[in-house]
């Protein structure tokens, strides 16, 4: 595994893009792994009863999938030192599944601390699902 260096990283560097498939099985696995068993993430009938278009992904699944893209770019997951987002729209997951598109851009590099700021965009079915999604990574 190779960790990205501050010397090779400049503002404007691109992260991704990566397309991540998401199915109802993905959400069942995330529910089990996270302990968030809210039925809106698994049960189509329940989701529609409470006014949602269909089953929706956990916001934290979406954030986690975006985090994996940043971790892959920096070269080691432990280098993601800060990570924040707003949840602006849900990822709707019909029975046939959906896709999450994640990309990012370096907006700052601090040579002294060797830390970079990455702004991430995540969308699904043409809708932006994360807002102000930003990670700070520790480079070599």
């Amino acid at each position, binding site marked *: *595994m190779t960790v990205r260096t501050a010397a090779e990283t400049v503002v404007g560097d691109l992260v991704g893009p990566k397309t991540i498939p998401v199915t109802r099985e993905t959400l069942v696995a995330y529910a089990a*792994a996270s302990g968030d068993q809210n039925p809106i993430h698994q049960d189509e009938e329940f989701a529609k009863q409470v006014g949602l278009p269909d089953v929706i992904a956990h916001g934290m699944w979406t954030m*986690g*999938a975006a985090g994996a893209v940043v971790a892959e770019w920096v070269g080691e*997951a432990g280098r*993601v030192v*800060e990570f924040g987002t707003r949840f602006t729209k849900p990822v709707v997951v019909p029975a046939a599944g959906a896709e999450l598109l994640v990309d990012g851009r370096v907006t700052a590099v601090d040579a002294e601390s060797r830390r970079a700021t990455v702004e991430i965009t995540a969308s699904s079915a043409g809708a932006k699902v994360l807002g102000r999604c930003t990670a700070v990574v520790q480079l070599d």
Partner: protein
Amino acid sequence: MSEGVNQDFVGRTYPPSGPYAVSAAEIAAFADAVGADDPVHRDAEVARAAGHADVIAPPTFAVTIAQQCDRAYVMDPESGIDYSRVVHGEQRFVHHRPITAGDELTGELTVDSIRMAGGHAMITTRTELTAGAEPVCTSTSTIVVRGGED
């Protein structure tokens, strides 16, 4: 209803909860679920070579513990939170070091702010996760308690 959210809770810090034991199996299951392919989540040798004591958790894993810490507050009838009306608005992590298999974490929950806007209540809580005296992660979460439509 958001109107019922008790603003007296702002600034309240709960007694630390835990310990929450973190296992390699939990980390691997979480990494699988979010599609985190990095071998530092599954292979202790790779994790040690990267400077960690054992396999480490993906950057958002802390939420699983922070949400357990949150329960003392959101399930408290005095808080006035109708959990069926709650959606997750924002989430932020500051990692002081990665969460590592074998950790026994303690979480201290503080209600940072409660803001009313447009009939909704926006509640920001902060969980400080520590391993003994060592700070591990600060997890900050904003939940939105939606107001009624009627």
